[in-house]
């Protein structure tokens, strides 16, 4: 396992420990288990020291009342619920805050409803078309969130029976809000992905379709081999279920799709603004950066282009990659124009 994967895993384990240790029912044997875990690796100690302050900062965060509650169709119900005796304020001073808070929440709810209506009203169809270097996060009318990558085109169409997104190029990460009565469908020319409430990424690359599941479960249907006239899903072709951390690649030639195990955090890291590379070639890294940014990088010699790189970068910072490369390899950097960085090996 990669260093960064190990680190991420340790962070999640640390998060779980933070929660378990704050549970009043924590037993002595659990605490002993925790000490054992700490003594397993300095990485565990480091991540525990990193994650614990998050817990502390969350608890001390004074502006929770300004964080909008999740827009559920049951928003009205939860207002009623809280005004009951379910959660009495800790101190008197808090009741004033909570009244203000609920007024705010109500206003936010109405605003969101307004936006939802606007979506349905004006955009029965809504098309999103990102160019090079563009990224976009869109909240759909049902509360689902789509992160749309660069060079991506998708069309959103919701009706009362289903939620449908047509992805004609590029990549997008979907966090689908749960609604068992309306399946969420993402369609590409090669495959159709069906979800109820989950998080997954879909990418069209070189005519192949890549589906990666981060949370929950989705069902993928491969389109029939002969090119169909409509993008409607093929009838009577078996669905393949994908679970967390599974990835399916639907090849362009219509042959059977392969399912493999992946680290979905790494695969979908672009959506969080990170590019993660693990023994990828400089050429592959540059290609990714060029998709996400206006500033284009050009690599002159093939030897440098083939060099493997393992690192994590911010998607919007190609300069950081060039600096990194400069630190680990002997390179020459020139800037022929404002939007162009040319790199080559220095010893030629």
């Amino acid at each position, binding site marked *: 396992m990669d*260093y*960064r994967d190990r680190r991420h895993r340790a*962070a*999640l384990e*640390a*998060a779980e420990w*933070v*929660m378990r240790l704050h549970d*009043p029912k924590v037993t*002595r044997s659990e*605490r*002993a288990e*925790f*000490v054992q875990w*700490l003594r397993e690796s*300095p*990485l565990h*100690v*480091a991540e525990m*020291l*990193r*994650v*614990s*302050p*998050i*817990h*502390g*900062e*969350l*608890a*001390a*965060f*004074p*502006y*929770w009342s300004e*964080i909008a*509650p*999740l*827009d559920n169709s049951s928003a009205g119900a*939860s207002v009623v*619920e809280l005004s009951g005796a379910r*959660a*009495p304020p*800790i101190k008197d001073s808090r009741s004033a805050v909570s009244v203000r808070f609920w007024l705010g929440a109500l206003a936010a709810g109405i605003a969101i409803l307004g936006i939802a209506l606007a979506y349905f009203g004006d955009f029965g169809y809504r098309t999103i078309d990102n160019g090079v270097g563009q990224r976009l996060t869109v*909240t759909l009318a049902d*509360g689902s*969130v789509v992160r749309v990558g660069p060079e991506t085109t998708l069309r959103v169409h919701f009706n009362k029976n289903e939620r449908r997104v047509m992805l004609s190029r590029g990549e997008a990460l979907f*966090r689908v*809000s749960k609604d068992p009565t309306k399946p969420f469908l993402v369609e590409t020319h090669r495959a159709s992905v069906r979800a109820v409430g989950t998080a997954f990424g879909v990418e069209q690359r070189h005519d192949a379709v890549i589906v990666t599941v981060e*949370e929950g479960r989705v069902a993928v249907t491969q389109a029939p081999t002969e090119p169909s006239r409509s993008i409607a899903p093929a009838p009577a072709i078996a669905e393949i279920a994908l679970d967390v951390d599974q990835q399916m690649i639907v090849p362009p030639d219509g042959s059977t799709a392969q399912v493999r195990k992946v680290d979905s955090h790494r695969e979908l890291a672009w959506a*969080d603004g*990170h590019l993660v590379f693990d023994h990828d070639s400089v050429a592959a890294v540059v290609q990714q950066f060029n998709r996400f940014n206006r500033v284009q990088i050009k690599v002159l010699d093939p030897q440098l282009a083939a060099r493997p790189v*393992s*690192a*994590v*970068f911010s998607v919007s910072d190609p300069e*950081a990659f060039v600096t*990194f490369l400069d*630190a*680990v390899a002997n390179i020459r950097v020139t800037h022929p124009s404002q939007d162009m960085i040319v790199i080559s090996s220095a010893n030629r």
Partner: protein
Amino acid sequence: MRTRATHELLSDWFQSFRRWRSPLRKLWYLSESDLDDVAQEVFLRLLRYDSVELIEHPQAYLFRMAANVVGEWSMRSRHRHPHDARWLDDLEAESDPEREAAGETAHRQLRQALGELPPRQREVLRLHFGEGLARAQIAERLKTSERSVKRDLINAYGRLRILLGPDLAADPELRDRSE
């Protein structure tokens, strides 16, 4: 009855947290590699320390040890490189206005990071910390299982860890790996 217990608990842990907040926040501003150095030293001390004691208050010992390591190193480095220990001096800053400013920065960063979380994870955090609901109550409110609430919480922490952490690209260990 149940909510009352939850609130007592919560205030308990606010107390214990307040005690550790300041040293923890100091750690938070260390770079990835400095923190790893501190962790390495704490790890060695943990191995030497008496288990029975540790198991009684593991977190308290962990934070104390980390605070001690940072303190000792800051003292040593000030003697050795008087101008080369800016971050350590920053950590030493205990004056109230400075601490308050650091607090506001942390709040701002946290608010921004919360905005980048998936809505559902944000909602679970809001219900837990903002409204003081226990996991079971959150599950009830969101019409889901306690297990899935727990998962959302853990994933939210994992994501906040990345969103709030110092730039991993600057991590020397990651650099070394590409050699």
